[in-house]
């Protein structure tokens, strides 16, 4: 029983770490611009697919993987420049629809370019499972968890200890005031999109040896990352990490104990309950509207 629980916990945390990275991506962009980026999932897919493409093309991992992070970051930058900046300050609904448009463009382009098939990557350090109290842990899971943890620490340092990071935080609290003290909020917008896309892509690369990837893999990752961000309370970085992990763990336990065919429904049932009873998420702050 303990072994089984531990097994579910391992797989839940692994997949949850990817959701957490996606949720962080949502949070960073939301804080910088008030936009919910429905294309976030596509960057996760883009990371995985490009990593597969570059390694298949014969590039060594050490070149292929950085490229597969860099290109989605540039795509994120381009997205901010071409589609978000021109309609800054538009209604929520307009912004949501534009990001959906971007996600369709990315997904469609990859479908046309790389086809509909599923692709995998070899695990980074072998497939020999590690046994812990009767449960098994794949080395790739350690990669996912380790890199995600480092990334979260790095982000914490960036937002709390560097001038650029603090400028981004300031912008999220009050854009007008931030501009008054000389922060270039336009640059903050670009950085936030590039960062979120890069973080998402990295998550997508790490998880590809475990889950495989395909042109439409980003939809579910993105939606579940969004669930994670909302569960944690939109806008809270800590909330995004906890929310993402929670979604992963609950999904794994639900799949194990209730029904594996309803695995994908579990995060969405969870989010409906949370929205009903805790409309601001676990770590969200109460905000009042200005009239």
């Amino acid at each position: 029983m303990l072994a089984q629980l531990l097994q579910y916990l391992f797989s839940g945390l692994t997949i949850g770490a990817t959701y957490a990275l996606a949720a962080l991506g949502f949070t960073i962009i939301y804080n910088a611009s008030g936009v919910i980026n429905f294309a976030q999932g596509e960057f996760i897919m883009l990371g995985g697919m490009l990593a597969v493409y570059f390694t298949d093309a014969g590039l060594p991992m050490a070149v292929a993987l950085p490229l597969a992070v860099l290109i989605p970051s540039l795509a994120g930058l381009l997205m901010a420049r071409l589609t978000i900046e021109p309609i800054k300050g538009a209604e929520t609904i307009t912004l949501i629809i534009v990001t959906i448009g971007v996600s369709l463009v990315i997904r469609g382009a990859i479908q046309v370019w790389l086809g509909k098939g599923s692709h995998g990557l070899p695990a980074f350090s072998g497939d020999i499972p590690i046994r812990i109290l009767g449960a098994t842990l794949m080395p790739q899971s350690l990669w996912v968890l380790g890199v995600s943890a480092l990334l979260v620490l790095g982000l914490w340092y960036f937002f709390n200890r560097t001038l650029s990071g603090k400028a981004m935080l300031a912008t999220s609290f009050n854009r007008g005031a931030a501009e008054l003290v000389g922060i270039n909020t336009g640059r903050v917008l670009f950085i936030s999109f590039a960062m979120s896309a890069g973080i998402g892509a990295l998550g997508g690369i790490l998880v590809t040896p475990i889950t495989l990837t395909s042109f439409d893999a980003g939809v579910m990752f993105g939606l579940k990352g969004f669930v994670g961000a909302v569960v944690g309370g939109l806008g809270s970085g800590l909330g995004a990490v906890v929310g993402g992990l929670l979604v992963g763990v609950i999904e794994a336990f639900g799949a194990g104990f209730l029904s594996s065919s309803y695995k994908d429904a579990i995060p969405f049932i969870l989010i409906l309950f949370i929205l009903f009873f805790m409309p601001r998420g676990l770590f969200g702050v109460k905000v009042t509207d200005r009239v």
Partner: protein
Amino acid sequence: MIRRYLGLYVVAVIIAVLPFLIPNGFYLDLAIRMGINAVIVLGLNLLIGFAGQISMGHAGFIGIGAFASAVLPTHFGWHPFVALVAGAVLAGSLAALVARPIFRLKGHYLAMATLGLGIIVNIVLRNEAKYTGGPDGMPVPPFTLFGFAIDSDKHWYWIVSVILMVSVWASINLMNSPFGRALRGLHGSEVAAQVVGVNVTRYKVAIFVMSAVFASLMGSVTAHYVGFVSPSLADFGHSIELITMVVVGGMASVFGSLVGAVLLTALPQALATFEGWETVAFGVILILCMIFMPKGLVPTLAARFGGRRE
């Protein structure tokens, strides 16, 4: 009074003349699909355009209607008409049940909740293979009324046309009623609407339920017309397609809904030779529309040419 219904008369004339201009069954089929989408988009536009509330799971309600019409007559021997009503009641009740708590939220949270609802419906339809045929879908028995089976495309053309006319007429009237004014007020400023005595939550729930029922009914019509249903009717992509129709045609515009539905139902046919590019095209259209004419086609053109505003 005449001005108010001018557009309705134009639509009626087009519908009446169309069958004589259509060269073959392929285009008749396309016309019927356009009509079905137009009714769904009208309902969704009431919610998105007039009340300013986004539903990202509307295809879920279409799925409920479609599968009620497929499952209940096939497995339980229900009369197709009763099944259609049952589907609409189920969709409406589900909408009402989730609407109350959801509509206290706004913006992104609402998008999330409706999206979740749609995805759950889709997953249920995919998994309950014993009744729904799973991912492959299932055949639907023909619709019968007073012993007559409705099974020719010509019949369906007129039935969908009548439903469409009634929906357009009802939408125009609704928007010019106290209910419609309350909805528009709510879009402008919720607080202001509340201050002048509009029961904000009640109106939002009402319009959400109404658009869900619209979607479910047309889901049933689709099921009987096509003779086959599959869970892809209820998937996220379909919800996005519907939102695209609302946005391209024009939010808060009755005739914009029709134009959006007609254009975007035709688009995949036009792009059919470019396998896969269809998704890219949809995306580009959405983006360009939002950047260059965020109000949508019909309201933008109406403003440009100084024509009558709806």
